[in-house]
Protein backbone atom coordinates (compact mmCIF):
# COMPACT_ATOMS: atom_id res chain seq x y z
CA UNK A 1 0.00 0.00 0.00
CA UNK A 2 1.35 3.43 -0.90
CA UNK A 3 1.34 6.03 1.86
CA UNK A 4 0.49 9.30 0.23
CA UNK A 5 1.51 12.55 1.89
CA UNK A 6 -0.50 15.68 1.30
CA UNK A 7 1.05 19.14 1.68
CA UNK A 8 -0.50 22.49 0.91
CA UNK A 9 1.65 24.92 -1.07
CA UNK A 10 0.15 28.36 -0.41
CA UNK A 11 -0.27 30.32 -3.59
CA UNK A 12 0.58 27.31 -5.74
CA UNK A 13 -1.72 24.39 -4.98
CA UNK A 14 -1.46 20.99 -3.35
CA UNK A 15 1.41 18.54 -3.37
CA UNK A 16 0.92 14.79 -3.09
CA UNK A 17 3.96 12.59 -2.76
CA UNK A 18 5.19 9.26 -1.49
CA UNK A 19 8.49 7.47 -0.98
CA UNK A 20 8.69 4.98 -3.78
CA UNK A 21 9.77 1.39 -3.26
CA UNK A 22 12.84 1.95 -5.38
CA UNK A 23 14.31 4.70 -3.28
CA UNK A 24 12.91 7.73 -4.98
CA UNK A 25 10.25 10.10 -3.85
CA UNK A 26 7.52 10.49 -6.44
CA UNK A 27 4.87 13.16 -6.44
CA UNK A 28 2.32 15.26 -8.21
CA UNK A 29 1.63 18.94 -7.64
CA UNK A 30 -1.90 19.97 -8.53
CA UNK A 31 -1.60 23.63 -9.45
CA UNK A 32 -4.47 26.01 -8.82
CA UNK A 33 -5.04 26.47 -12.54
CA UNK A 34 -5.40 22.71 -13.09
CA UNK A 35 -1.88 22.02 -14.36
CA UNK A 36 -0.36 18.83 -12.97
CA UNK A 37 3.33 18.74 -12.26
CA UNK A 38 4.86 15.30 -11.89
CA UNK A 39 8.25 14.92 -10.27
CA UNK A 40 10.76 12.36 -9.02
CA UNK A 41 13.33 13.14 -6.39
CA UNK A 42 17.06 13.11 -6.88
CA UNK A 43 18.71 9.92 -5.71
CA UNK A 44 21.51 11.59 -3.76
CA UNK A 45 19.28 14.37 -2.38
CA UNK A 46 15.79 13.06 -1.70
CA UNK A 47 14.55 16.57 -0.81
CA UNK A 48 15.20 17.88 -4.31
CA UNK A 49 13.49 17.16 -7.61
CA UNK A 50 15.55 15.47 -10.29
CA UNK A 51 12.94 15.82 -12.99
CA UNK A 52 9.61 17.46 -13.22
CA UNK A 53 7.15 17.51 -16.06
CA UNK A 54 4.18 19.81 -16.25
CA UNK A 55 1.01 18.51 -17.86
CA UNK A 56 -2.27 20.21 -18.59
CA UNK A 57 -5.45 18.55 -17.40
CA UNK A 58 -6.03 16.61 -20.60
CA UNK A 59 -2.46 15.39 -20.80
CA UNK A 60 -2.53 14.35 -17.15
CA UNK A 61 -5.56 12.21 -17.87
CA UNK A 62 -3.82 10.51 -20.76
CA UNK A 63 -0.77 9.76 -18.61
CA UNK A 64 -3.01 8.46 -15.84
CA UNK A 65 -4.67 6.14 -18.31
CA UNK A 66 -1.31 4.97 -19.61
CA UNK A 67 -0.24 4.16 -16.08
CA UNK A 68 -3.36 2.14 -15.55
CA UNK A 69 -5.42 4.93 -14.08
CA UNK A 70 -8.57 3.81 -15.84
CA UNK A 71 -8.89 0.77 -13.61
CA UNK A 72 -7.88 2.65 -10.51
CA UNK A 73 -9.72 5.43 -8.78
CA UNK A 74 -8.59 8.71 -10.33
CA UNK A 75 -9.07 10.73 -7.18
CA UNK A 76 -5.71 11.56 -5.74
CA UNK A 77 -5.71 11.28 -1.99
CA UNK A 78 -7.34 7.89 -1.99
CA UNK A 79 -5.23 4.80 -1.77
CA UNK A 80 -3.55 3.76 -4.94
CA UNK A 81 -3.53 0.16 -5.97
CA UNK A 82 -0.27 -1.21 -7.16
CA UNK A 83 -0.24 -3.89 -9.72
CA UNK A 84 1.40 -6.88 -8.08
CA UNK A 85 4.76 -7.81 -9.55
CA UNK A 86 5.02 -4.84 -11.92
CA UNK A 87 7.30 -1.88 -11.32
CA UNK A 88 8.14 1.23 -13.29
CA UNK A 89 10.90 3.75 -12.78
CA UNK A 90 12.40 6.83 -14.38
CA UNK A 91 16.14 6.25 -14.58
CA UNK A 92 18.33 9.26 -15.31
CA UNK A 93 21.19 8.54 -17.70
CA UNK A 94 24.13 10.30 -16.13
CA UNK A 95 27.14 11.64 -17.97
CA UNK A 96 29.33 8.81 -16.70
CA UNK A 97 27.03 6.07 -17.95
CA UNK A 98 28.71 3.60 -20.35
CA UNK A 99 25.61 3.78 -22.56
CA UNK A 100 25.64 7.54 -23.13
CA UNK A 101 26.10 7.96 -26.88
CA UNK A 102 25.41 4.30 -27.62
CA UNK A 103 22.42 2.53 -29.11
CA UNK A 104 19.78 1.28 -26.74
CA UNK A 105 20.22 -2.26 -28.11
CA UNK A 106 23.84 -2.30 -26.87
CA UNK A 107 22.62 -2.35 -23.29
CA UNK A 108 20.81 -5.67 -23.85
CA UNK A 109 18.45 -4.42 -21.21
CA UNK A 110 15.70 -6.97 -21.77
CA UNK A 111 18.03 -10.00 -21.92
CA UNK A 112 20.07 -8.96 -18.92
CA UNK A 113 17.42 -7.55 -16.59
CA UNK A 114 14.08 -8.69 -17.93
CA UNK A 115 12.80 -5.11 -18.09
CA UNK A 116 11.51 -3.19 -21.09
CA UNK A 117 12.30 0.39 -21.98
CA UNK A 118 8.90 1.89 -22.68
CA UNK A 119 10.01 5.45 -23.33
CA UNK A 120 12.96 7.83 -23.21
CA UNK A 121 12.45 11.38 -22.01
CA UNK A 122 14.71 13.91 -23.69
CA UNK A 123 14.56 17.68 -23.17
CA UNK A 124 11.05 17.44 -21.76
CA UNK A 125 9.81 15.42 -24.75
CA UNK A 126 8.91 11.75 -24.60
CA UNK A 127 10.12 9.31 -27.22
CA UNK A 128 7.69 6.41 -26.82
CA UNK A 129 8.76 2.81 -27.49
CA UNK A 130 12.32 3.50 -28.72
CA UNK A 131 13.80 0.76 -30.90
CA UNK A 132 17.17 -0.98 -30.33
CA UNK A 133 18.87 1.44 -32.75
CA UNK A 134 17.80 4.46 -30.68
CA UNK A 135 20.94 6.30 -29.47
CA UNK A 136 20.92 7.28 -25.80
CA UNK A 137 22.40 10.57 -24.65
CA UNK A 138 23.58 11.76 -21.24
CA UNK A 139 20.72 13.64 -19.62
CA UNK A 140 18.03 11.33 -20.99
CA UNK A 141 15.61 9.72 -18.60
CA UNK A 142 14.91 6.11 -19.40
CA UNK A 143 11.49 4.82 -18.39
CA UNK A 144 11.63 1.09 -17.64
CA UNK A 145 8.96 -1.40 -16.68
CA UNK A 146 9.54 -4.85 -15.22
CA UNK A 147 9.71 -6.71 -11.95
CA UNK A 148 10.89 -4.81 -8.90
CA UNK A 149 14.23 -6.60 -8.93
CA UNK A 150 14.56 -6.16 -12.68
CA UNK A 151 14.06 -2.41 -12.41
CA UNK A 152 16.72 -2.25 -9.71
CA UNK A 153 19.13 -4.21 -11.91
CA UNK A 154 18.29 -1.94 -14.84
CA UNK A 155 19.23 1.10 -12.77
CA UNK A 156 22.60 -0.46 -11.95
CA UNK A 157 23.13 -1.51 -15.54
CA UNK A 158 22.53 1.99 -16.85
CA UNK A 159 24.82 3.65 -14.36
CA UNK A 160 27.71 1.16 -14.28
CA UNK A 161 27.35 -1.16 -17.24
CA UNK A 162 26.90 -4.25 -15.07
CA UNK A 163 23.63 -5.39 -13.58
CA UNK A 164 25.12 -6.87 -10.40
Amino acid at each position, binding site marked *: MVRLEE*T*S*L*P*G*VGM*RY*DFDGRFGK*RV*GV*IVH*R*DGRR*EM*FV*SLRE*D*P*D*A*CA*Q*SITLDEGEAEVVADLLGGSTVSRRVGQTMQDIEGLAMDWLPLERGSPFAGRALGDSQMRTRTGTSVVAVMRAGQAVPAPGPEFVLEAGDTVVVVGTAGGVRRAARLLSSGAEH
Partner: protein
Amino acid sequence: MLGRLFLELGTVILALALVGRAAGRLGITPIPLYLMAGIGLGTVMHLDDTAEKFIHTGAEIGAILLLFILGLEYTSDELRTNLRANRRIGLLDLALNFTPGVVAGALLGLPPLAWVLLGGITYLTSSGIASKILSDLGRLGNRETPTILAVCVIEDVVMAFYLPVVAALLIGGSLLTVGVNLALALTAFGVTFFLAMRYGHVLSRVLNVPSDETLLLGVLGLVLVVAGAADLLKVSAAIGAFLVGIALSGEVAHRARAQIEPLRDLFAAVFFLFFGLQLDLAAVPDVLLPAALLALVTAVTKFLVGWHGAAQAGVQSRGRFRAGTTLIPRGEFSILIAGLGLGLAPVLGPLAAVYVLLTAIIGPVLARFDAALAPRVARVLGG
Protein backbone atom coordinates in the same frame (compact mmCIF):
# COMPACT_ATOMS: atom_id res chain seq x y z
CA MET B 1 2.99 66.70 -28.58
CA LEU B 2 1.43 63.25 -28.56
CA GLY B 3 4.14 62.00 -30.90
CA ARG B 4 6.85 62.97 -28.46
CA LEU B 5 5.01 61.36 -25.53
CA PHE B 6 4.61 58.06 -27.37
CA LEU B 7 8.21 58.13 -28.49
CA GLU B 8 9.45 58.61 -24.97
CA LEU B 9 7.17 56.02 -23.42
CA GLY B 10 7.95 53.53 -26.14
CA THR B 11 11.67 54.01 -25.67
CA VAL B 12 11.34 53.52 -21.94
CA ILE B 13 9.30 50.32 -22.32
CA LEU B 14 11.66 48.97 -24.97
CA ALA B 15 14.57 49.61 -22.65
CA LEU B 16 12.75 47.57 -20.00
CA ALA B 17 12.18 44.76 -22.48
CA LEU B 18 15.88 44.72 -23.29
CA VAL B 19 17.04 44.48 -19.69
CA GLY B 20 14.32 41.88 -19.06
CA ARG B 21 15.82 39.73 -21.81
CA ALA B 22 19.27 40.21 -20.37
CA ALA B 23 17.99 39.08 -16.97
CA GLY B 24 16.46 35.99 -18.56
CA ARG B 25 19.82 35.13 -20.13
CA LEU B 26 21.65 35.55 -16.87
CA GLY B 27 19.04 33.55 -15.03
CA ILE B 28 18.35 36.28 -12.49
CA THR B 29 15.25 38.28 -11.73
CA PRO B 30 14.72 41.46 -13.74
CA ILE B 31 13.76 43.62 -10.74
CA PRO B 32 17.26 44.91 -9.94
CA LEU B 33 17.86 45.49 -13.65
CA TYR B 34 14.68 47.57 -13.95
CA LEU B 35 15.98 49.70 -11.12
CA MET B 36 19.29 50.13 -12.88
CA ALA B 37 17.55 50.93 -16.15
CA GLY B 38 15.68 53.67 -14.34
CA ILE B 39 18.91 55.05 -12.94
CA GLY B 40 20.50 54.91 -16.38
CA LEU B 41 17.57 56.56 -18.13
CA GLY B 42 17.50 59.29 -15.55
CA THR B 43 21.02 60.28 -16.49
CA VAL B 44 20.79 60.09 -20.29
CA MET B 45 17.23 61.07 -21.05
CA HIS B 46 15.23 64.03 -19.97
CA LEU B 47 11.57 63.08 -20.00
CA ASP B 48 9.12 65.88 -20.57
CA ASP B 49 6.43 66.70 -18.08
CA THR B 50 3.60 64.65 -19.56
CA ALA B 51 5.68 61.50 -19.87
CA GLU B 52 7.01 61.94 -16.35
CA LYS B 53 3.49 62.33 -14.96
CA PHE B 54 2.29 59.30 -16.85
CA ILE B 55 5.17 57.19 -15.56
CA HIS B 56 4.55 58.42 -12.04
CA THR B 57 0.87 57.43 -12.17
CA GLY B 58 1.80 54.13 -13.82
CA ALA B 59 4.22 53.42 -10.99
CA GLU B 60 1.49 54.03 -8.39
CA ILE B 61 -0.85 51.69 -10.26
CA GLY B 62 1.99 49.16 -10.34
CA ALA B 63 2.30 49.25 -6.56
CA ILE B 64 -1.45 48.72 -6.22
CA LEU B 65 -1.56 45.82 -8.66
CA LEU B 66 1.45 44.14 -6.99
CA LEU B 67 -0.47 44.03 -3.74
CA PHE B 68 -3.74 43.07 -5.37
CA ILE B 69 -2.24 40.03 -7.08
CA LEU B 70 -0.48 39.14 -3.85
CA GLY B 71 -3.85 39.14 -2.09
CA LEU B 72 -5.37 37.04 -4.86
CA GLU B 73 -2.67 34.40 -4.36
CA TYR B 74 -4.02 33.39 -1.00
CA THR B 75 -7.40 32.16 0.03
CA SER B 76 -8.51 33.11 3.52
CA ASP B 77 -8.46 29.43 4.52
CA GLU B 78 -4.83 29.09 3.54
CA LEU B 79 -3.94 32.19 5.51
CA ARG B 80 -5.65 30.90 8.61
CA THR B 81 -4.15 27.41 8.65
CA ASN B 82 -0.73 28.64 7.59
CA LEU B 83 -0.59 31.28 10.32
CA ARG B 84 -1.49 28.74 12.92
CA ALA B 85 0.96 26.09 11.76
CA ASN B 86 3.97 28.35 11.26
CA ARG B 87 3.73 30.84 14.10
CA ARG B 88 7.11 30.02 15.55
CA ILE B 89 9.18 30.28 12.43
CA GLY B 90 7.30 33.49 11.60
CA LEU B 91 8.24 35.02 14.95
CA LEU B 92 11.85 33.98 14.53
CA ASP B 93 11.88 35.57 11.09
CA LEU B 94 10.41 38.80 12.42
CA ALA B 95 12.88 38.98 15.30
CA LEU B 96 15.95 38.14 13.22
CA ASN B 97 15.21 40.24 10.18
CA PHE B 98 13.31 43.28 11.38
CA THR B 99 15.91 44.06 14.05
CA PRO B 100 18.93 44.56 11.75
CA GLY B 101 17.07 47.27 9.83
CA VAL B 102 16.04 49.06 13.01
CA VAL B 103 19.58 48.92 14.40
CA ALA B 104 21.03 50.13 11.11
CA GLY B 105 18.56 53.03 11.08
CA ALA B 106 19.69 54.02 14.55
CA LEU B 107 23.38 53.69 13.67
CA LEU B 108 22.90 55.80 10.54
CA GLY B 109 21.34 58.53 12.66
CA LEU B 110 18.00 58.50 10.88
CA PRO B 111 14.78 59.70 12.55
CA PRO B 112 13.12 56.89 14.60
CA LEU B 113 10.25 56.38 12.16
CA ALA B 114 12.81 55.66 9.45
CA TRP B 115 14.20 52.87 11.67
CA VAL B 116 10.82 51.18 11.46
CA LEU B 117 10.80 51.61 7.69
CA LEU B 118 14.28 50.20 7.37
CA GLY B 119 13.19 47.29 9.55
CA GLY B 120 10.43 46.57 7.03
CA ILE B 121 12.90 46.85 4.17
CA THR B 122 15.21 44.22 5.66
CA TYR B 123 12.37 42.01 6.92
CA LEU B 124 10.41 41.37 3.76
CA THR B 125 11.67 38.64 1.48
CA SER B 126 10.59 39.15 -2.10
CA SER B 127 7.88 36.55 -2.48
CA GLY B 128 7.87 37.42 -6.18
CA ILE B 129 11.53 36.51 -6.60
CA ALA B 130 11.27 33.46 -4.33
CA SER B 131 8.31 31.95 -6.16
CA LYS B 132 9.92 32.70 -9.50
CA ILE B 133 13.08 30.88 -8.44
CA LEU B 134 11.01 27.92 -7.24
CA SER B 135 8.94 27.52 -10.38
CA ASP B 136 11.68 28.37 -12.88
CA LEU B 137 14.11 25.87 -11.39
CA GLY B 138 11.45 23.15 -11.03
CA ARG B 139 11.77 23.18 -7.26
CA LEU B 140 8.07 23.28 -6.36
CA GLY B 141 8.15 19.57 -5.50
CA ASN B 142 11.13 19.92 -3.17
CA ARG B 143 10.65 19.14 0.48
CA GLU B 144 11.88 22.54 1.66
CA THR B 145 9.49 24.44 -0.60
CA PRO B 146 6.46 24.51 1.76
CA THR B 147 8.69 26.12 4.42
CA ILE B 148 9.82 28.83 2.00
CA LEU B 149 6.26 29.55 0.93
CA ALA B 150 5.02 29.56 4.52
CA VAL B 151 7.58 32.18 5.54
CA CYS B 152 6.56 34.33 2.56
CA VAL B 153 2.87 34.04 3.41
CA ILE B 154 3.43 35.10 7.02
CA GLU B 155 5.53 38.04 5.91
CA ASP B 156 2.79 39.12 3.55
CA VAL B 157 0.26 39.07 6.37
CA VAL B 158 2.58 41.03 8.65
CA MET B 159 3.04 43.47 5.79
CA ALA B 160 -0.73 43.94 5.63
CA PHE B 161 -0.70 45.13 9.26
CA TYR B 162 2.55 47.01 8.95
CA LEU B 163 1.69 49.19 5.97
CA PRO B 164 -1.40 50.93 7.38
CA VAL B 165 0.40 51.55 10.67
CA VAL B 166 3.40 53.07 8.93
CA ALA B 167 1.16 55.09 6.65
CA ALA B 168 -0.64 56.53 9.66
CA LEU B 169 2.63 57.30 11.44
CA LEU B 170 4.02 59.00 8.36
CA ILE B 171 1.24 61.57 8.33
CA GLY B 172 2.72 62.73 11.61
CA GLY B 173 1.45 65.71 13.60
CA SER B 174 0.92 65.87 17.34
CA LEU B 175 0.79 62.73 19.44
CA LEU B 176 -2.98 62.95 19.49
CA THR B 177 -3.41 63.19 15.71
CA VAL B 178 -0.99 60.32 15.21
CA GLY B 179 -2.99 58.29 17.71
CA VAL B 180 -6.27 59.11 16.00
CA ASN B 181 -4.86 58.35 12.56
CA LEU B 182 -3.44 55.09 13.79
CA ALA B 183 -6.71 54.03 15.38
CA LEU B 184 -8.62 55.01 12.25
CA ALA B 185 -6.25 53.12 9.99
CA LEU B 186 -6.30 49.97 12.11
CA THR B 187 -10.08 50.03 12.47
CA ALA B 188 -10.59 50.51 8.75
CA PHE B 189 -8.13 47.73 8.05
CA GLY B 190 -9.66 45.41 10.63
CA VAL B 191 -13.21 45.95 9.42
CA THR B 192 -12.29 45.45 5.78
CA PHE B 193 -10.21 42.40 6.61
CA PHE B 194 -13.10 40.90 8.53
CA LEU B 195 -15.56 41.67 5.72
CA ALA B 196 -13.18 40.24 3.14
CA MET B 197 -12.75 37.00 5.10
CA ARG B 198 -16.44 36.72 5.92
CA TYR B 199 -18.24 37.93 2.82
CA GLY B 200 -15.56 37.48 0.16
CA HIS B 201 -17.54 34.75 -1.55
CA VAL B 202 -20.51 37.08 -2.10
CA LEU B 203 -18.29 39.65 -3.77
CA SER B 204 -16.67 36.90 -5.81
CA ARG B 205 -20.05 35.74 -7.06
CA VAL B 206 -21.22 39.23 -7.98
CA LEU B 207 -18.06 40.00 -9.93
CA ASN B 208 -17.91 36.68 -11.75
CA VAL B 209 -19.60 37.62 -15.03
CA PRO B 210 -19.18 35.43 -18.10
CA SER B 211 -17.64 38.13 -20.31
CA ASP B 212 -13.87 38.43 -19.83
CA GLU B 213 -13.96 42.07 -20.78
CA THR B 214 -16.58 42.99 -18.21
CA LEU B 215 -14.78 40.96 -15.57
CA LEU B 216 -11.52 42.80 -16.21
CA LEU B 217 -13.22 46.19 -16.05
CA GLY B 218 -15.22 45.26 -12.96
CA VAL B 219 -12.23 43.94 -11.03
CA LEU B 220 -9.82 46.69 -12.04
CA GLY B 221 -12.43 49.35 -11.30
CA LEU B 222 -13.13 47.90 -7.87
CA VAL B 223 -9.44 47.63 -7.03
CA LEU B 224 -8.82 51.26 -7.95
CA VAL B 225 -11.93 52.52 -6.12
CA VAL B 226 -11.05 50.66 -2.92
CA ALA B 227 -7.39 51.71 -3.20
CA GLY B 228 -8.46 55.32 -3.68
CA ALA B 229 -10.86 55.22 -0.74
CA ALA B 230 -8.20 53.59 1.44
CA ASP B 231 -5.76 56.32 0.48
CA LEU B 232 -8.27 59.04 1.39
CA LEU B 233 -8.76 57.32 4.76
CA LYS B 234 -4.95 57.37 5.10
CA VAL B 235 -4.79 53.56 5.21
CA SER B 236 -2.46 53.21 2.18
CA ALA B 237 -3.88 52.50 -1.23
CA ALA B 238 -1.83 49.34 -1.63
CA ILE B 239 -3.44 47.74 1.41
CA GLY B 240 -6.91 48.46 0.05
CA ALA B 241 -5.94 46.60 -3.09
CA PHE B 242 -4.46 43.74 -1.04
CA LEU B 243 -7.76 43.32 0.80
CA VAL B 244 -9.75 43.20 -2.42
CA GLY B 245 -7.38 40.44 -3.50
CA ILE B 246 -7.97 38.50 -0.27
CA ALA B 247 -11.73 38.86 -0.64
CA LEU B 248 -11.83 37.41 -4.13
CA SER B 249 -11.61 33.66 -4.30
CA GLY B 250 -12.52 30.70 -6.43
CA GLU B 251 -13.13 31.00 -10.13
CA VAL B 252 -13.23 34.76 -10.22
CA ALA B 253 -9.81 34.96 -8.53
CA HIS B 254 -8.40 32.54 -11.07
CA ARG B 255 -9.81 34.46 -14.04
CA ALA B 256 -8.92 37.85 -12.64
CA ARG B 257 -5.35 36.73 -12.03
CA ALA B 258 -4.96 35.65 -15.62
CA GLN B 259 -6.28 38.99 -16.85
CA ILE B 260 -4.62 41.39 -14.43
CA GLU B 261 -1.19 39.73 -14.40
CA PRO B 262 -0.07 41.22 -17.72
CA LEU B 263 -1.17 44.66 -16.50
CA ARG B 264 0.72 44.07 -13.27
CA ASP B 265 3.85 43.05 -15.16
CA LEU B 266 3.72 46.25 -17.19
CA PHE B 267 3.00 48.65 -14.35
CA ALA B 268 5.26 46.91 -11.83
CA ALA B 269 8.14 47.28 -14.28
CA VAL B 270 7.24 50.96 -14.56
CA PHE B 271 7.18 51.12 -10.76
CA PHE B 272 10.75 49.86 -10.44
CA LEU B 273 11.86 52.08 -13.30
CA PHE B 274 10.30 55.13 -11.71
CA PHE B 275 12.04 54.37 -8.44
CA GLY B 276 15.34 54.24 -10.31
CA LEU B 277 14.53 57.45 -12.20
CA GLN B 278 13.95 59.32 -8.96
CA LEU B 279 17.12 58.08 -7.39
CA ASP B 280 19.78 60.63 -6.64
CA LEU B 281 22.89 59.07 -8.15
CA ALA B 282 25.20 61.32 -6.19
CA ALA B 283 23.90 59.72 -2.99
CA VAL B 284 24.82 56.16 -4.02
CA PRO B 285 28.54 56.12 -3.10
CA ASP B 286 27.67 57.23 0.43
CA VAL B 287 25.27 54.34 1.02
CA LEU B 288 27.41 51.68 -0.62
CA LEU B 289 29.14 50.52 2.55
CA PRO B 290 26.09 50.53 4.87
CA ALA B 291 23.98 48.80 2.21
CA ALA B 292 26.62 46.11 1.68
CA LEU B 293 27.00 45.50 5.41
CA LEU B 294 23.24 45.37 5.86
CA ALA B 295 22.90 42.98 2.93
CA LEU B 296 25.58 40.74 4.42
CA VAL B 297 24.08 40.66 7.90
CA THR B 298 20.51 40.14 6.75
CA ALA B 299 21.57 37.51 4.22
CA VAL B 300 22.88 35.53 7.20
CA THR B 301 19.83 36.15 9.40
CA LYS B 302 17.41 35.27 6.61
CA PHE B 303 19.44 32.20 5.79
CA LEU B 304 19.18 31.05 9.40
CA VAL B 305 15.39 31.35 9.29
CA GLY B 306 15.15 29.21 6.15
CA TRP B 307 17.68 26.69 7.47
CA HIS B 308 15.95 26.37 10.80
CA GLY B 309 12.46 26.15 9.29
CA ALA B 310 13.47 23.47 6.81
CA ALA B 311 15.26 21.54 9.55
CA GLN B 312 12.05 21.48 11.56
CA ALA B 313 10.24 20.11 8.53
CA GLY B 314 12.70 17.19 8.51
CA VAL B 315 14.68 18.32 5.48
CA GLN B 316 18.35 17.37 4.98
CA SER B 317 21.16 19.89 4.95
CA ARG B 318 21.14 20.58 1.20
CA GLY B 319 17.46 21.38 1.27
CA ARG B 320 17.94 23.54 4.35
CA PHE B 321 20.63 25.42 2.49
CA ARG B 322 18.33 25.99 -0.48
CA ALA B 323 15.54 27.19 1.80
CA GLY B 324 17.90 29.66 3.43
CA THR B 325 19.29 31.09 0.22
CA THR B 326 15.93 31.34 -1.52
CA LEU B 327 14.65 33.63 1.22
CA ILE B 328 17.58 36.07 0.96
CA PRO B 329 16.40 38.24 -1.96
CA ARG B 330 14.45 41.35 -1.02
CA GLY B 331 12.56 43.09 -3.77
CA GLU B 332 9.29 44.75 -4.59
CA PHE B 333 8.08 45.39 -1.06
CA SER B 334 11.38 46.75 0.19
CA ILE B 335 11.27 49.25 -2.67
CA LEU B 336 7.65 50.03 -1.90
CA ILE B 337 8.44 50.76 1.75
CA ALA B 338 11.48 52.84 0.83
CA GLY B 339 9.26 54.82 -1.53
CA LEU B 340 6.92 55.64 1.35
CA GLY B 341 9.76 57.02 3.42
CA LEU B 342 11.51 59.17 0.82
CA GLY B 343 10.05 62.37 2.27
CA LEU B 344 11.19 61.43 5.75
CA ALA B 345 14.71 60.26 4.99
CA PRO B 346 15.79 60.61 1.34
CA VAL B 347 18.73 58.29 2.00
CA LEU B 348 16.29 55.36 2.23
CA GLY B 349 15.90 55.47 -1.57
CA PRO B 350 19.48 54.78 -2.66
CA LEU B 351 20.06 52.59 0.39
CA ALA B 352 17.12 50.34 -0.45
CA ALA B 353 18.01 50.26 -4.14
CA VAL B 354 21.59 49.10 -3.51
CA TYR B 355 20.40 46.73 -0.79
CA VAL B 356 17.79 45.09 -3.02
CA LEU B 357 20.32 44.84 -5.83
CA LEU B 358 22.81 43.05 -3.59
CA THR B 359 20.40 40.64 -1.89
CA ALA B 360 18.70 39.77 -5.18
CA ILE B 361 22.10 38.69 -6.48
CA ILE B 362 23.53 37.01 -3.35
CA GLY B 363 20.57 34.66 -2.82
CA PRO B 364 20.21 33.03 -6.24
CA VAL B 365 23.99 32.81 -6.72
CA LEU B 366 24.52 31.09 -3.36
CA ALA B 367 21.63 28.71 -4.03
CA ARG B 368 23.61 27.13 -6.87
CA PHE B 369 26.30 25.88 -4.53
CA ASP B 370 24.08 23.81 -2.26
CA ALA B 371 26.04 20.59 -2.81
CA ALA B 372 29.39 22.18 -2.00
CA LEU B 373 28.44 24.56 0.79
CA ALA B 374 25.61 22.83 2.64
CA PRO B 375 27.81 20.25 4.45
CA ARG B 376 30.13 23.01 5.68
CA VAL B 377 27.26 25.08 6.99
CA ALA B 378 25.83 21.95 8.61
CA ARG B 379 29.13 21.47 10.44
CA VAL B 380 29.01 25.04 11.77
CA LEU B 381 25.34 24.99 12.71
CA GLY B 382 25.42 21.45 13.99
CA GLY B 383 22.77 20.05 11.73
